């Protein structure tokens, strides 16, 4: 039985500020919200960051990489605007971050990582981060953590339409349209996003100088040029179709189908002296992801089954013009991935004190990778690549126990098999306790072992794949405290926060190293000790009637130290921070709303990142710290036939000249204007 206690608070500010995706009118009043006197047993001891719909639906131009940058302290490594963006938790690498979409893992099985720049935030209704140990509840292999993404059947009754257009700097056009239909049994949603831009933003190239010559070709002057981002154009199309049927008798069926058609140029490096008109460097992707689900709910039992399929075709072409209008291919790489997915799970609540879960899932990957076309010694043609399949089985069982109301214990046991290799048992233990009802002061702690299997490229890529690689593995511990409270004096407010310490040791860390034969090959080399602190703070208050102020901040301190053996007598890397892992990262969002106006300030900070394993302060050895500030101002207008939302967003407000990765230019200040149109079709109820 769940005890409810209502207090006047504004923690559910999210309810007050409807994002443009929503169709119901705004309401800036403080609300009575429910504060759970007893937390869900499923989340006993879990370290979780949840993103509300305001953050996810801020504007249509944002990807999940942008959302995570400004709303969490995980490290988002971005290679440029609309370019590869990876996410890493707690000082680990991007391939140590597992990503699920509606329960199905969507990490690329060849690379292990996920490109968050290709996930539009408008396609995600629910997003949360499971830090470290907590990821074991959902999947194995998340040595850093897990990003859980999903959609919900929650749509308004009747037919609803919404269209949003964004027009921005660098000839950027973003378009979003959504159709929904809701009835007692059916919930249908269709969404499309189309984004395009030449993406040719200006930047000062500090890495290069342009020469000024005299008539005899002698250099008489040099200067750092102001260049445009070369070869950075993109056209991304996404379509998401969802159909849900609810019997209203405890059964729900769902279908989610997401199609991506992405065509992106890969920007030239700041140190590239090639003529952009003579080179083409392009990546194209077609991905289709679908999940069919069935949920059966009884008062103390939930049974669910899912089936899914992912198809990904990726093409990379590097071409140069050898004579006018005569282009020759230098690299023509193709990969095709078919993934079949199945999952069954059950949750059982036999008594108030016990909560039992079990889950089995299977991902069958079939990968064909074609990396290069060559001419053989006998003159025939051949393709360098690999064609492999791998079954990935994962099963878990958990028992959660609340012997007394303030105390919760949870034990999760997970077993995984990839190919024909079984990982050792993955155990995880969680404990939490409500120390004080006043302020909801809660203590949490957990411990787990985890294993991450090598990716298919790690094992089979030609040349270099190493079938003898071992799994990366280690132990993770964390402990922390959280609180949530609110009041009405001197004005209505709520405040909540958490502080977590974590410590993990990862052995047999895989890195790709060059060989004397001119290619790279992965090896298990490093032993890494990653530890640190994560903090979060949320404050919301109403200083003046009708003015609501909401602040969300996060901070991470993440030393991630190479504790491996020296690779040679001259090796200076042991004891040093891993490359491209900032020791400090922080984010802050502040939102001020008044009537139908909303002002948002977003800020992110990454401390310096070393680019060398020896942490040298050479000229290319580290990337200086940077701060990023974005703002937006939004106004909602309501007319009889339509609701309108107008928004102006300013990115990189202080025109910061910065880099996230060496030699990858980032845009300066830029603007985008959005207009959202939501026709009204009579009264709607959610």
């Amino acid at each position, binding site marked *: 039985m769940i005890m409810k206690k209502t207090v006047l608070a504004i923690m559910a500010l999210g309810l007050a500020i409807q994002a443009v995706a929503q169709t119901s009118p705004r309401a800036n009043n403080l609300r009575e919200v429910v504060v759970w006197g007893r937390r869900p047993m499923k989340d006993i001891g879990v370290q979780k960051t949840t993103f509300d719909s305001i953050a996810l639906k801020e504007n249509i131009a944002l990807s999940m990489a942008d959302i995570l940058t400004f709303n969490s302290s995980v490290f988002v490594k971005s290679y440029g605007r609309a370019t590869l963006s990876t996410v890493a938790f707690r000082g680990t690498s991007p391939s140590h971050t597992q990503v699920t979409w509606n329960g199905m893992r969507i990490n690329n099985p060849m690379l292990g990582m996920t490109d968050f720049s290709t996930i539009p935030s408008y396609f995600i209704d629910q997003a949360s981060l499971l830090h470290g140990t907590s990821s074991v509840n959902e999947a194995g292999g998340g040595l850093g953590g897990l990003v859980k993404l999903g959609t919900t059947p929650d749509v308004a009754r009747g037919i609803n339409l919404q269209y949003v257009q964004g027009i921005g700097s660098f000839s950027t056009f973003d378009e979003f349209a959504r159709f929904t239909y809701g009835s007692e049994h059916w919930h249908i949603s269709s969404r499309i996003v189309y984004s395009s831009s030449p993406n040719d933003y200006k930047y000062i190239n*500090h*890495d*290069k*100088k342009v*020469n000024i010559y005299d008539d005899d*070709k002698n*250099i008489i002057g*040099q200067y*750092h040029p102001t260049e445009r981002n070369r070869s950075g154009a993109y056209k991304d199309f996404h379509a998401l179709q969802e159909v849900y049927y609810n019997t209203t008798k405890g059964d729900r069926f769902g279908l989610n189908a997401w199609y991506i058609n992405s065509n992106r140029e890969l920007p030239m490096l700041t*140190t*590239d*002296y*090639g*003529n952009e008109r003579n080179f083409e460097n392009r990546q194209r992707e077609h991905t289709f992801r679908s999940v069919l689900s069935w949920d059966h709910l009884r008062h103390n039992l939930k049974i669910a089954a899912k089936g899914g399929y992912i198809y990904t075709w990726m093409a990379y072409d590097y071409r*140069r013009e*050898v004579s006018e209008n005569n282009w020759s*291919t*230098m690299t*023509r790489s193709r990969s095709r991935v078919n993934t079949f997915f199945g999952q069954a799970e059950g949750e059982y609540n036999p008594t108030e004190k016990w909560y039992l879960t079990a889950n089995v899932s299977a991902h069958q990957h079939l990968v064909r990778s074609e990396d*290069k*076309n*060559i*001419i*053989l*010694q006998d003159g025939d043609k051949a393709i*360098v690549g690999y064609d492999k399949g791998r079954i990935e089985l994962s099963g878990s069982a958990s028992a959660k126990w609340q012997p007394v109301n303030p105390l919760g214990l949870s034990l999760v046991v997970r077993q995984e098999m990839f190919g024909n290799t079984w990982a050792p048992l993955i155990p995880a233990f969680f404990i939490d306790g409500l120390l004080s009802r006043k302020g909801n002061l809660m203590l949490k702690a957990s411990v787990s072992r985890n294993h991450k299997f090598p990716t298919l490229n790690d094992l089979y890529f*030609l040349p270099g*794949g190493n079938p003898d690689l071992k799994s990366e593995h280690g132990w993770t511990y964390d402990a922390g405290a959280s609180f949530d409270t609110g009041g009405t004096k*001197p004005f209505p407010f709520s405040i909540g926060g958490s502080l977590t310490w974590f410590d993990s040791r990862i052995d047999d860390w895989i890195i790709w190293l*060059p*060989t*004397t034969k*001119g*290619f790279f090959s992965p090896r298990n*080399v490093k032993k890494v000790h990653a530890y640190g602190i994560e903090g979060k703070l949320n404050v919301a208050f109403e200083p*003046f009637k009708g003015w609501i*102020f909401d*602040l969300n901040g996060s901070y991470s301190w993440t030393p991630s130290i190479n504790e491996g053996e020296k*690779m*040679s*007598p*001259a*090796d*200076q*890397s042991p004891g040093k921070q891993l490359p491209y892992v900032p020791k400090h990262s922080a984010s*802050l969002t*502040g939102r001020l709303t008044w009537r139908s106006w909303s002002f948002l300030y977003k*800020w992110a*900070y990454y401390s310096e990142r070393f680019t060398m*394993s*020896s942490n040298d302060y*050479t*000229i*290319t050895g580290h990337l200086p710290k940077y*701060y990023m*500030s974005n703002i937006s101002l939004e106004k909602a207008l309501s007319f009889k036939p339509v609701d309108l939302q107008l928004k102006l967003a300013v990115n990189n407000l202080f025109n910061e*000249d*910065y*880099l996230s990765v060496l*030699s990858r230019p980032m845009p300066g200040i830029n603007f985008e204007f959005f207009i959202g149109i939501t026709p009204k079709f009579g009264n709607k109820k959610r």
Partner: protein
Amino acid sequence: MTRKLLLFSVLFLAVLSLTGCMEWDYDNDTENFDTAGSGLFICNEGNFQYGNATLSYYNPATNQVLNEVFFRANGMKLGDVAQSMSIYDNKGWIVVNNSHVIFAIDINTFKEAGRIENLTSPRYIHFINENKAYVTQLWDNRIFIVNPEKYEITGYIRVPDMTMESGSTEQMVQYGKYVYCNCWSYQNRIIKIDTETDQVVGELKVGIQPTSLVLDKYNKMWTVTDGGYEGSPYGYEAPSLYRIDAESFTIEKQWKFKLGAAPSEVQLNGARDKLYWIDDDIWCMDVTADRIPARPFLEYRDTKYYGLTVNPANGEVYVADAIDYQQQGMIYRYSPEGKLIDEFYVGITPGAFCWK
């Protein structure tokens, strides 16, 4: 109300305090070097796609090493993957592979003298005369002809039976009017180019993937193949060392290594009568020898050696250790007898050397 205004002011100031500028290390200050006399340039490749190649300079007489000299002298980066360097006409020509450029620098001040841009994927430069040089390429089936005086691309030598995608031409040596070049990636041949007509006039098949090429004092060319890799559709075989007569363009002798070995970097001493190469250990033999020595010149030191050179003036041997390819590499300097004389850190992935 006053309290509320105060709170707002504090918050506003707090937000303002969060702004700031990235503290760039770059500035326009440049250093004036004057390094007359002999010395050794070290090309540090850096990491592919990170634009962190650097140039180091070492003075063997004083044991002084200067790192990042290109940046320090010019106030700009060298680029992405510094592949090789040659000296001609008192200029150092640095081939920066993935920056599609060759920089010419003054060999004493390291100041840029000019640049040749828009190359496909340049690997090595070989000078025919003051008006003509050849630039080999990866991912191109053409060798570029450039004018070093005007820093211009003037033409191409098309290599027969080679596509752009599997194109690979590498190191060059000259015998009379002919330039010989080993073709490495997914290739198995040495080609012969007539420098008067700029045409490929012959080719010689060797083993899979000849990595490097030198010409000894007896006009014998030496190349070593890496044998490809396991699973390669092009083939996988035991690597070999070849001695090729430049005049007749025929293989005189072949020494086979064991399958899986990865020999590379054939080099000569100043007198061009001793051959050195890397095969885990550092090996050395007389160019007139019929057998590979039983023991290496320098034993393997728990690392992968990535570069090798011999001081033409005194026969001292320099070996590059790239360590984990993500930190400053180490150069070991040995006497002709194999005794360690000095060691010094340079840049990331030191791979190629050039003697001044």
